[in-house]
């Protein structure tokens, strides 16, 4: 039996505004309103008819406050995925679809906005969920350190070669350099820049880490039928799963040993593939949340694209790029080279890629997997398609 989420809702419009951190010309809510209006404009949809919102990861813009500026008549759904990291980004689409499929809302905007002057540093907001005296006393106070500890174990205990993260970083910059909206646009990236960047928390150097931008992203989700009547070709939500399994999640690092050096997605990936009837071989392109490059590698492993043993064969520059790779990843540059607004740019790129609007088009791409923030206590993933296979 087809799962209720399979192809029953679709993204009709996307909007993205991105600026250098600390350089947004507008306060956070205004940037967000701009992004929402852009999403509605390309869909040919009246923003007054938006009746629901979903966000994730500490967004400060309570939907009801967006109503006056957008001229919204009635708010019927406002929700967020629990958890402070980017783990909830894909799950937000599942929540939005649930509202539409259950008849509780008709047009739901999934959004994330981040302007440092308004909301402070993202890393501090994320850590506020986790910080306790155990961590403070050990000097572990940042997402970088939390992820570095697990990255070391990935390399040392599981024997994954350290240098494969460089291929992921290079592929990200390769894509970003050709994306006019990316922070890396027009730049030539020399891997020596990573190798010689300053140490943050071993094994991470500065360029192993995503670096925050100001900005906002918004995606308008409606029923599949409604989407077909709007201006842009629909990008269907084919499936979505969120959560985790026993032995993972805010356990003061007492995760089950076989889950410790993962990104936390094993049950989510299993459920997502079971729900959609798709497998890793059916995924044409991946938008991979990489807060840190090693966590991106773990996420690819969790989603079944490779294993600890085969990671070095699969995670290769040539294989990860849009022009010819079998596993094109982060075709707008990803969090590392497109820009980092808590991952919302990845969702926007998933849509653009499936419409053929990406700066790095993947020939014939039908499906795109969006993987949420790896390593978060709650994680989520979704699959989108420009057809319903």
């Amino acid at each position, binding site marked *: 039996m087809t799962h209720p989420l399979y192809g029953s809702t679709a993204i009709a419009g996307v909007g993205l505004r991105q600026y250098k951190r600390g350089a947004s010309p507008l306060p956070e809510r205004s940037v967000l309103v701009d992004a929402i209006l852009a999403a509605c404009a390309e869909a040919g949809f009246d923003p007054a008819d938006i009746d629901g919102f979903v966000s994730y990861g500490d967004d400060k813009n309570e939907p009801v406050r967006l109503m006056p500026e957008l001229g919204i008549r009635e708010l019927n759904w406002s929700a967020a995925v629990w958890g402070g990291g980017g783990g909830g980004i894909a799950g937000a689409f599942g929540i939005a679809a649930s509202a539409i499929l259950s008849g509780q809302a008709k047009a739901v905007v999934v959004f994330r906005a981040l302007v440092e002057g308004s909301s402070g540093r993202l890393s501090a907001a994320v850590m506020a969920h986790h910080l306790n005296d*155990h961590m403070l006393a050990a000097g*572990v106070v940042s997402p970088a350190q939390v992820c570095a500890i697990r990255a070391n174990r990935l390399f040392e205990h599981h024997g994954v070669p350290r240098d494969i993260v460089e291929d992921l970083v290079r592929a990200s910059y390769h894509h970003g350099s050709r994306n006019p909206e990316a922070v890396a646009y027009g730049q030539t990236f020399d891997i020596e820049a990573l190798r010689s960047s300053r140490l943050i928390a071993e*094994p991470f150097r500065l360029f192993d880490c995503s670096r925050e931008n100001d900005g906002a992203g918004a995606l308008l989700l409606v029923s599949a039928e409604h989407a077909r009547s709007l201006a842009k070709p629909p990008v269907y939500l084919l499936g979505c799963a969120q959560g985790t399994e026993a032995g993972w999640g805010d356990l003061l690092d007492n995760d089950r040993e076989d889950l410790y050096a993962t990104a936390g997605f094993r049950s989510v990936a299993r459920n997502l593939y079971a729900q959609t009837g798709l497998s890793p071989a059916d995924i044409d392109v991946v938008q991979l949340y990489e807060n840190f490059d090693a966590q991106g590698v773990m996420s690819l492993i969790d989603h079944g694209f490779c294993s600890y043993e085969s990671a070095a064969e699969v995670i290769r520059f040539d294989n990860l790029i849009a022009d010819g790779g079998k596993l094109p990843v982060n075709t707008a540059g990803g969090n590392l080279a497109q820009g980092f607004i808590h991952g919302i740019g990845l969702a926007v790129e998933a849509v653009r890629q499936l419409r053929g609007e990406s700066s790095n088009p993947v020939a014939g791409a039908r499906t795109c997997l969006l993987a949420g923030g790896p390593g978060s206590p709650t994680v989520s993933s979704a699959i989108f398609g420009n057809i319903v296979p």
Partner: protein
Amino acid sequence: MSHYRGEDAPYWQGLAEGRLLLPRCASCGRWTWPAAHRCGQCGATDMRWEELPMRASVFAWTRTWHRFGLTEGLELPFTSIVAEIDGCGIRLYGRLTDPDRIDPKIGEPLTGAIGATRVGDETIPTILWSRL
């Protein structure tokens, strides 16, 4: 002080007294961490705090070079570890005495002593681990 109020209050009390105390279900014998009132394994609500020697092995580690906020009380670089306590399988965050910056090895045996970390206006007790 917040850490004397939660489920793990006996842990902090123990460190203040110079002892490592960790919780174990009196009904099924399972060690539980993070501390909890109820044993998720057998459902009993009879946690006993037992004293353990400060012996452990390295489970995972990182050496921090960037001055993150709230680490001002620590000299850079400093090494944080996840230490697996001998005899119970519980892992604790801690710091490694690492003057020579020798990379820890997973599984390497450690011995601990009570120390403290200054965080803002507060001094938080912790276990400082050393290689044997």
